């Protein structure tokens, strides 16, 4: 066991994957010599050589497209998109190509690759360093979508994603890279080393894709969260003194609906929280599925607490970011309902 930040855990996962399987290659903008703007790939080029970890030209479509070609050859690329906000130029390659390769070729060609990208807000990054585009991937059959919320999971999920025979979108909440963040931006932030989930096994292990984790057991209301929102939920539940069951979804696609439904059937109440804009956000899908599977158990309407349907602003970051105050209001309303 070692203390790791989420960055260190991700780096460690890369290291183990590359050490274990020489088909694993890592590339992206600034990921080679420098080791990535968030340093998630630092040291890999030195250790594994420039043909296994290298810088790429600034062309996200090229990065993903080249990676797809590599999978057709038999490699397992792990590529970094510098910020999730910059994934759109690669969208065609992801949606039309990677996601459908296995199906359209009836299994002749597959795309075992991981597309990592820092996601979410809370760092005063303005509209192009703060977005949460997960729902744009959960709509795409053939993709898996993962959002870790802590170093232990980040490592295990990333290793599982690299092992996975299909393309995985791996969204890393950048606000969590150095420590958990519960939305109380005016309070000092604790580093991972003071959090139990910053304790990471140094050996190779995986956390299975498609399995949610109950982060806090409770009976009054189910809170569905992922990424940074897990800590917002913990703070809100505690501060509002509500016996909430908090589920960290970890994988959005395929969704662990069993864990979700069991919880909602127990509590009869459900609040969904995410940073992305509300309309057609992943919360919509969660709401639809919870309603479909738990309709007769629901006491009150499912509520969504989300980023507003505006671009992500700079100065108004904390008015945009769904923090504990907003969630508390929602939880209290749901408990009254």
């Amino acid at each position: 066991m070692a203390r790791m930040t989420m960055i260190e855990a991700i780096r460690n996962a890369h290291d183990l994957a590359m050490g274990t399987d020489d088909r694993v290659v890592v590339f992206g903008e600034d990921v080679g010599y420098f080791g990535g703007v968030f340093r998630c790939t630092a040291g890999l080029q030195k250790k594994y050589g420039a043909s296994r970890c290298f810088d790429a030209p600034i062309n996200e479509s090229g990065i993903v497209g080249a990676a797809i070609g590599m999978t057709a050859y038999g490699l397992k690329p792990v590529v970094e998109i510098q910020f999730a906000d910059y994934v759109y130029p690669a969208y065609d390659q992801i949606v039309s190509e990677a996601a459908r390769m296995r199906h359209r070729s009836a299994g002749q060609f597959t795309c075992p690759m991981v597309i990592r990208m820092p996601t979410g807000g809370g760092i005063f990054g303005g509209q192009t360093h703060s977005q949460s585009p997960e729902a744009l991937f959960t709509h795409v059959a053939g993709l898996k979508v993962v959002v870790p919320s802590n170093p232990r999971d980040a490592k295990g999920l990333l290793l599982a994603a690299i092992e996975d025979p299909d393309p995985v979108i791996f969204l890393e909440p950048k606000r969590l890279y150095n420590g958990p963040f519960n939305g109380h931006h005016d309070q000092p932030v604790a580093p991972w080393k003071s959090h139990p989930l910053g304790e990471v096994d140094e050996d190779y292990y995986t956390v299975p894709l498609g399995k949610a984790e109950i982060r806090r057991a409770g009976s009054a209301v189910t809170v569905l969260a992922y990424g940074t929102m897990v800590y917002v939920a913990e703070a809100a539940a505690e501060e509002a003194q509500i016996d909430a069951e908090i589920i960290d979804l970890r994988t959005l696609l395929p969704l662990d609906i069993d864990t979700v439904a069991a919880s909602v059937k127990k509590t009869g109440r459900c609040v969904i929280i995410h940073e992305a804009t509300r309309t057609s956000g992943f919360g919509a899908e969660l709401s639809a599925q919870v309603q479909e599977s738990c309709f007769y158990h629901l006491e009150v309407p499912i509520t969504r607490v989300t980023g507003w349907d505006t671009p992500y602003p700079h100065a108004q970051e904390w008015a945009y970011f769904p923090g504990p105050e907003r969630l508390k209001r929602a939880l209290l309303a749901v408990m009254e309902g």
Partner: protein
Amino acid sequence: MTDPKPLSLRVPEPGCRPGGVPDFSDFVVPMAGETRRPEIDTAPEDMRDMAFSIVRVLNRHGEAMGPWAGRLTPDELREGLRHMITLRVFDERMTNAQRQGKTSFYMQHLGEEAVSCAFRMALEQGDMNFPTYRQAGLLIAGGYPLVDMMNQIYSNSADPLKGRQLPIMYSARDHGFFTISGNLGTQYIQAVGWAMASAIAGDTRIAAGWIGDGATAEGDFHSAMVFASTYNAPVILNIVNNQWAISTFQGMARGAAVTFAERGHGFGIPAIRVDGNDYLAVHAVASWAAERARSGHGPTLIEHVTYRAGGHSTSDDPAAYRSKNESAAWPLGDPIERLKAHLIAIGEWSDERHTQGTAEIADRVRSAQREAEAKGTLIDGSHPSPRSMFDDVYAEMPQHLVQQRQEGGY
């Protein structure tokens, strides 16, 4: 500068539209044999001229001329001729099958047969093509069974792609043929990625990317050029300039450049223009590029100059946007006729053998068609089951797909 005149938009137009008289007099056709053959390790800047010329081997008398000639044996040439005829007959029959409603859609190669047929013969087993929908010659010349192509076209019970893909969107990994995408351009950078992987792995295999003149305008054309240039990828980047992109003439994508091959220059990628209707020239240039790539000298851009003599697809009627006489006026002739003439000129073929050979091929295609139709067509017989539609979305079917399959009753 005072009082500039009002600006205006230049919208390029082809030389000839329906009703007009096709005029290719601006189109410079070098003499066969005239264009030089640089060494395979020539620096790109030392062969710029190759992007403005056209490598041609066969002259109008069917003679093979110049430094690019002389690599293929008569047997190989006859085989090439058979491949091209097979592709043409195949196209005819499948176009007809589509008209008869046996499938939904078809795309033919009329006039462009040499490009993919000859190119394939320059590759080795294990090399990988990333084709568009207009290189079925790669399959035919590579020995892929016609009946499997037809099964795919018919989406029948023996369709290797299980009815999932539009007709002609083949995939044949074992034959070095990557699954065709309907989205233009995406495969070009994938080819580069495959080639990079081969280099990373210390392999000796190379890749070939394919794109049409129109699709060179896509951003992924650029992705491919940048990555191939930067990483010195062992890849052949083919542009098939068949003069048309549906109703749009090649000048719309080419813009103010003189040729498509020129695009290579801004990337330090050597570029060669080749007579795409000349089997010998295509084969020679492809071999040159393959050798270059395999020897570690990196990518080559090849512009195959040819003409799409047929419609874009069975959904298209070119009479609406170009002169009916344009195809006949096309100065580079017909690839089958030209190779036939060459074989005759060197005493290795005759009109009789040609007629007989064509008949044999027609038989072979017909019997493949019978075999395929016995397995069903899109409107008749059995098809891949709806149940199988849920397979291969993922390696392992997730719960929600199992449920949806149940919900659908499959």
